[in-house]
């Protein structure tokens, strides 16, 4: 006999599984950027990555100083 907890767990499991599949599907669909990677686009994207890294470092530093 399957318990209520078991049925609930299976239901949650299938929902999570469905979400993971959906994310994989989205990643596959948008695997290749459609925009042509010209020099300008590459520079802009590199700048964005560096900018975000800097912000994450600043947030991390703030968090560390709050904990100290």
């Amino acid at each position, binding site marked *: 006999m399957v318990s209520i907890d078991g049925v609930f767990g299976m239901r949650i499991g299938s929902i999570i599984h469905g979400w993971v599949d*959906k994310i994989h599907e*989205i*990643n596959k*669909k*948008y*695997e*290749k*950027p*459609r*925009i*042509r990677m010209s020099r*300008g*686009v590459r520079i*802009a*994207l590199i*700048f*964005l990555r560096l*900018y*975000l890294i800097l*912000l994450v470092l*600043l*947030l991390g530093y*703030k968090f560390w100083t709050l904990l100290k």
Partner: protein
Amino acid sequence: MDLGSTFFYKYQRFIKTLKIYLLIAGPGLIVMLADNDAGGITTYTVTGAKYGYGLIWFLLLLLPVAYIVQEMTVRLGAVTKRGHAEAIFDAFGSFWGWFSFLDLALVNWLTLVTEFIGMTAALAIFGINPLITVVIVSIVMMLMVLQGKYWTWEKIALLFAALNIVYIPAAFLVHPSMSQVLSVGLVPHFPGGFNGTLFFFLMANIGTTIAPWMIFFQQSAVVDKGMKEKDIPWGQIDTLIGSAFTVLVAIFLVVVTGTVLYGSEVESAAQAASVMMTTNPWLGTFIAIGLFNAGFLGAICISLASSWAFGEVFGWAHSLNLKIREAPWFYACYLFALISAGAVVLIPHAPLVLITLFVQVIAVTLLPAALVFLILLLNNEEIMGKYKNTTLQNVASATIVIAIIVLSTLYGITTLFPELLM
């Protein structure tokens, strides 16, 4: 043709033009007036109380800034028929897509919390319990989207947007000196000299004028409304009128608080309304109603921006033209955002100030990315065809984007490290 016939012909033409405009108008006006949300109203209130009319000239400068950024979303939406989240996934791949989408979801939800903070604080002035405010607001906002027509939703939203101009009669109630407003307000200067605090205020005003959710909202709204390439000029006019209104409302609010509260220590719009209630109940009521309405308008747009983005990314049906059974996930997202954000405000001793500060910092991570993607997309001939940015548009938008990135980054840093301003 005699004078009467010429006048009649021009009148008929004007009425026809107005009818077309009213048909197309919506996304630009709504997004711009919703831009004066609870956070925006608080910023303008405090700006007026701190600097009087001294920064009105700066608010005027923000008109073209808001227009140039938002106008690009009109063209992008009308040409690609895609929302901004989907456009980023498609053009830049899943890494940037997920980054923008998750960042947007987080910043929108946090901003939604601040809208509920504004709404509950405004109605608390009239003795209304925050629980009642949250429940009634959530029900009204749900009913607004459940009628299954984008057009109806838009007209109701426009009605609430029109309430935003409550600050214009409020300004006349305080009898400001017009000569003072013009001589102090329109002459560019830095009241009290350029210092850290003034810099923080300038950046806060920029931050409230351009927000990431606005880019996502307007583009999705243009798509949901079904605007086509031929409608772009009307969308541009709509955005221009909206930009003018948003700045006008901000200026009138600064005039109100600059006249009544200049020199006093005010920290929020709700506090300003409470103070005014004791001296001029009509004025206090106007400010409180304006704050509530600003939070309400901001909340309906922000929660919709998130729901549209979820629908675009996950491929769910996502249109206000669909019934609840046709787009269940779209409406579920909308409802979840509302209920969860409203619930946070009701938690006793919730860190609401911290949440408000956090919104500013997280928005800084998303805004530069959203703006850079916007310019890159608008320069892609394959995507935009003849509607791509011209050289002049690129010069203007690149200048604005660079300035916004630098200033919003400094704003985020000074929010994190306020000691840098000392």
